[in-house]
């Protein structure tokens, strides 16, 4: 008996492949964001849901237009990165934002943040934050008008003028309140850290519930889809710097824990700064990057004109990423200790 020649495939090694690809990673990022999204809906009701839907639609649509029109099956949208960008953008927006602004932000996040640089993997800046920075520059008032948080009982109540038409002046005076950081900065009024952890404060959709964000980050770290060095490094730097200032002048500068859990720091550190495309690839580089973000956040919050600085800190450090990568190349096996060319 002789084995009949079967149809054999020729290729080069390696022949096996880890069963994880980009869409898998994106899918798990979305899973890890589910608790945060649910919390956003719990605190900000249907407004949160609408903003998230609009942002995801905006990102998905733009990606489809620019990256590959045609059947969805073969489209690059399938990698899921646009959906992640949309969700993350939504989570940084205030609940009362007019939906057309959210949509515009989502479109710009993809165009300015990604397409202009050549698509996924080539962008310098985090797309979600680019979209938010665009909105902040265009509509500073709308972006800093914060609705108070509520609970499920008020689920159906809109938190602001979500449905205003484009370019009409939205009504903002109805109900608004200040975020913990703004209260601290402009009225020297601190907020309880427990409230910050649980999310019962005003703020952007997804930045309020620090614990749930950490939970999502923990899951991604466990699945090895997230470089834990970056959030840990940011938290450590912010805590140390803030504590140092607090020791110098406790009246003027709040303590470390307040800084850690207020504003967008947790969301930014866990989900934005860790965007693999725009953060360093080397492990040493990750620490440098994280320290840079941490220092900038406290510096902007304490010495700048704005109450919050997470977005700009991350975007600034994004710009340094190629440089950081260049100087932190690992020493190769058997290479000389110092003075590598």
């Amino acid at each position, binding site marked *: *008996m*002789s*084995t009949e*020649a*079967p149809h*054999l*495939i*020729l*290729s*080069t*090694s*390696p*022949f*096996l*492949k*880890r069963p*994880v*690809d*980009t*869409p*898998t*990673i994106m899918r798990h990022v979305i899973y890890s964001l589910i608790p945060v999204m649910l919390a956003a809906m719990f605190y900000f009701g249907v407004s949160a849901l609408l903003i998230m839907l609009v942002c995801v639609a905006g990102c998905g649509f733009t990606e489809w237009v620019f990256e590959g029109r045609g059947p969805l099956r073969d489209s690059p949208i399938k*990698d899921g*990165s646009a959906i992640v960008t949309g969700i993350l953008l939504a989570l940084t927006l205030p609940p009362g934002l007019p939906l057309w602004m959210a949509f515009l932000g989502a479109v710009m996040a993809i165009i300015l943040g990604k397409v202009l640089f050549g*698509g*996924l*993997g*080539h962008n310098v800046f985090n797309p979600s934050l680019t979209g938010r920075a665009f909105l902040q520059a265009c509509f500073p008032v709308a972006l800093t008008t914060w609705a108070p948080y509520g609970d499920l009982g008020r689920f159906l109540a809109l938190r602001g003028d979500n449905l205003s038409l484009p370019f009409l002046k939205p009504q903002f005076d109805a109900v608004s309140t200040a975020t913990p950081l703004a209260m601290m900065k402009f009225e020297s009024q601190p907020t309880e850290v427990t409230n910050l952890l649980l999310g019962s404060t005003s703020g952007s959709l997804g930045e309020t519930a620090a614990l749930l964000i950490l939970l999502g980050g923990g899951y991604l770290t466990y699945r*090895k*889809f997230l*470089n834990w060095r970056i959030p840990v490094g940011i938290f450590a730097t912010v805590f140390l710097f803030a504590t140092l200032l607090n020791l110098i002048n406790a009246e003027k500068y709040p303590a470390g824990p307040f800084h850690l859990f207020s504003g967008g720091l947790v969301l930014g550190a866990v989900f934005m700064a860790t965007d*693999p*495309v725009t*953060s360093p*690839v*080397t*492990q040493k580089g990750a620490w440098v990057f994280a320290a840079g973000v941490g220092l900038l956040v406290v510096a902007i919050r304490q010495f700048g004109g704005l109450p919050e600085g997470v977005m700009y800190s991350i975007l600034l450090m994004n710009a340094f990423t190629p440089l950081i*990568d260049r100087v932190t*190349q*690992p*020493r*190769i*096996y*058997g*290479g*000389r200790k110092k003075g590598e*060319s």
Partner: protein
Amino acid sequence: MTRGRLIERIPFPDEVILPLSQHLGAPSKPVVAVGDTVHRGQLIAEACGFVSVPLHASVTGRVTAIEKRFHPSGRPSEAIVIACDPTSPQTLYEEGPLQWENLATPELLATIQDGGFVGLGGAAFPTHVKLAVPEGKRVQFFLVNGCECEPYLTTDHRIMLEYTESIFLGIRIILKMLGAEKTFIGVETNKWDAIASLRDQIPADLPCEVIPLQTKYPQGAEKMLIKAVLHREVPSGRLPIDVQVVVSNVGTIAGIGELFAYGQPLIERVVTVTGPGVHNPSTLLMPVGTPLSQVLDYCGGLTEEIAQVLFGGPMMGSAQYNLQVPIMKGTSGILCLTEHQVLSRREYPCIRCAACLDACPVFLNPSLLGSLARSGRYDEMLGLHILDCMECGSCSYVCPSNIPLVQRFRVAKGLLREQQAREKVAKEREAREQQERAKVGGDVQEKVGSK
């Protein structure tokens, strides 16, 4: 899949195909002619220079052809074909233990070369070259590689369990040759039975220690093993001997043990036949030169879903397209993969997730190298140490974007090596021409002067 199964000897095949090039270095030169009767273990082709080994008949029978046959490298290559004599008892040509206690190192080296030994781990580098200590170098430790070189393979595991005595004899002889202080056998901790069995049987007077190592690919790579056992790094572009270490695979050592114990040259080897694509995976002892098809038949044949048949492991092996290729001295395994294992996957853009950086055992930056390779910027890759890449394939394995990283690096390395060779030749030619010109110029001047 095959770790718990004893090594079985397969029946002698009807014919063996022995390519003259089964090792790195110069091919051997036939010393038999078509029609000759040869005896199992008889020399049939001699070594051609120092980096070359002779070839022995792996069965008793008649030489039926010396012609080009399919070769596992993909290119047909000159081979000696022997039809097996079905009535022969297949005893060895010259059986009996070889003297070694009174032999000096050069004689022992010659004996190993005459035995046709090459590294059985897969690279098939002539063993005597590896064991020859260059003038002025010293060997402190001899390292025995008992880490399976790739996932799926259990060849080394079974050899450690079943050829323990031969391994220690081999170690004893090699220690004497090298003048080394001590031997370490590195074994991955997924083979505790082998570790225990080796530890039990170490002869009291042999300076030898078994070191359990973490199970991870590519632990069996020479440089990784040296680092794991001795915490030494071989400098980039240098050899283990530069850190006073010589490494060899357990299979090779066991073979050398057999050579001195019974006078058996390298004419058979242990091969793991495994993977979901073959009916009865097993670890088999077979004559070198056995056609692949015959081995697969013995294992119950290929399954319906077969997609790829590999020589070697899943990470660095080579795909075969013809089942008539022979098992070679360096064939450590035959891996049969099924369709769903080898589905071609869509390539996505690099998202700089750094999985490849974490996976690279020599700490390169495959992500950056990959994008440079893609745009053909090979020169820039030199500065990023592309030539230190050992092509283990870990980067391609982990890449979530399914980028064929190591595949591109191979191309880059090949082109760079070619370019370097060309530059070297050009430089030499230029130097020669300059010399000649200077000479001619001098002659002319002389003539002018004499006029």
